């Protein structure tokens, strides 16, 4: 890969008191690829995701992000104001539970418009038109624009959360178990949607999941975490079909066959 990476993390380390969050994590994400991060609960996946997205400060290490304008910045070295501005324009974060990523007290339209308004949009009609466009892109009827997301089903809420994140056309999206807690048919539709949007928009993403099926379907490269370290990485198909590490072998062989 001689292409320039969009996100580069070096030696990321985070401890919670005497507990290890993650240890010496190095990774790179290239334009238009989805990088999967798998491992059991407590292996440090979410810690890494929070460190990469700037939501958590590392004890040591750096996260370099190439902005749309071409400049490279360290997410943890820039000012709070700049970090927040980048987080709501060039980055996206899809939570496992949509309640954490949505504002349930305002309508679906307002949820989508929020990033635009924070970014300086001062026309009601333009913001609303974009909200309608994105609601339709995630297969929600425009007639439900002014409804509050409390009335939405779990799958719809997750799709709304995706629309909310993508409305500013971010370059990089962090996906934290985006299909967790949804039933399989809804999962399948959501995965289709994510694949289509990724292909259409040329998105890069970091996908945290414990579902190897989801990882195989979405990600091109895969990293396996255990006890805060990355123990194996490679092309998704290689890692899943020919796991090298004993733990990865265990993980792959533990998957239930239908």
């Amino acid at each position, binding site marked *: 890969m001689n292409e320039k990476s969009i996100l580069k993390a070096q030696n990321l380390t985070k401890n919670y008191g005497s507990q290890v969050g993650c240890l010496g994590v190095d990774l790179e994400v290239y334009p238009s690829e989805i990088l999967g991060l798998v491992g059991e609960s407590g292996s440090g996946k979410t810690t890494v995701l929070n460190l990469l997205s700037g939501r958590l400060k590392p004890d040591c290490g750096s996260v370099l992000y190439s902005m749309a304008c071409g400049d490279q910045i360290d997410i943890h070295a820039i000012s*709070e*104001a700049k970090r*927040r501005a980048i987080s709501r324009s060039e980055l996206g974060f899809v939570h496992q539970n949509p309640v954490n990523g949505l*504002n349930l007290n*305002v*309508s679906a*339209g*307002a949820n989508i*418009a*929020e*990033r635009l*308004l*924070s*970014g300086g*949009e*001062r*026309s*009601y*009609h333009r*913001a*609303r038109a974009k909200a309608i466009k994105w609601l339709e892109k995630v297969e929600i009827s425009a007639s439900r*624009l*002014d409804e509050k997301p409390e009335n939405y089903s779990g799958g719809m809420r997750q799709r709304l959360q995706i629309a909310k994140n993508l409305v500013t056309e971010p370059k990089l999206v962090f996906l934290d178990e985006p299909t967790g807690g949804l039933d399989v048919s809804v999962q399948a539709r959501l995965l289709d949607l994510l694949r289509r949007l990724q292909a259409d928009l040329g998105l890069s993403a970091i996908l945290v999941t414990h579902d190897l099926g989801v990882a195989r379907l979405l990600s091109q490269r895969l990293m396996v975490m255990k006890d805060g370290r990355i123990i194996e990485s490679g092309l998704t198909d290689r890692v899943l079909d020919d796991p090298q590490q004993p733990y990865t072998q265990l993980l792959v062989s533990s998957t239930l066959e239908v």
Partner: protein
Amino acid sequence: MNSKIIKFTDQAPKEAPNPLNLPSKFRRLNYAYLDEDTKREIRRGLLKAVAVPGSQVPFSGREMPMPYGWGTGGIQVTASLIGPNDVLKVIDQGSDDTTNAVSIRAFFAKTAKVKTTTITKEASIIQTRHRIPEDRLTDDQIMVYQVPLPEPLRPLEPRESETSTLHALKEYGLMYLKLYEDISVHKEIAISFDYPSLVNERYAMSPSPIPRFDNPKLNMSKALHLFGAGRERRLYAVPPYTKVAPFDFEDYPFRIQDFVGGCALCGSVDSYLDEIVIDDKGGRLMVCSDTDHCQKMREKSGGEQK
């Protein structure tokens, strides 16, 4: 007659009541009720508030001889500013003769020995709740507002740590979110009072519960506007000649309330009107909320008729 009824006069009493027979040095209230250290602290807070227009400055709000919600913040600001040469006007909902307005005037007449007035032009300090007088204010006047909720972002964000961060970073997207939601639901911006505004192109401010009719009066006003929130313990200010711009959308611009017809008493067509129920058959009158302005207009037109 019952001699226990305390009579309020414009004259300060020679001596405060002394039921415990305290020695004279403990007996007397300080000038304008508050002790000098407290006044000094409030003045310092006000200086900071004027220096950073629209930004909220914490102060250590004292217990006042009245409940929160009756203007404890405004009274403390007035007490820290007032001197014997001041002329005080107090209005409540635009009116000079409501209980609260009368009591606060009497309070300062008694404790600060100041002259009081109901005429806007004569006043050097105007303490107010809910209105800005219709008459243009001048550069030697100070408006003091009684503020219940100083934080304009509070209804949208409950955490103080988060709202202070949003102010520090000038992130007011939430404000527009509220306006967006209003237009989606009500087809217009449905904030009729306490309309949030951006002061000096920097800080979002709650102008206290004045009707949005009065917001334009704050913009580039000649007078100094001081805001005191007693329960929330915050001070803020709009210095003279400061830009105060209401939040709005370019395709849904801010506009003031408009009234059909003028005041039923004075005929004024450019003042804020209150609806008064006059009988039990549904009879109503629309009259000026600013009683001083109404009086003046009536005298003027009466004079012309004669």
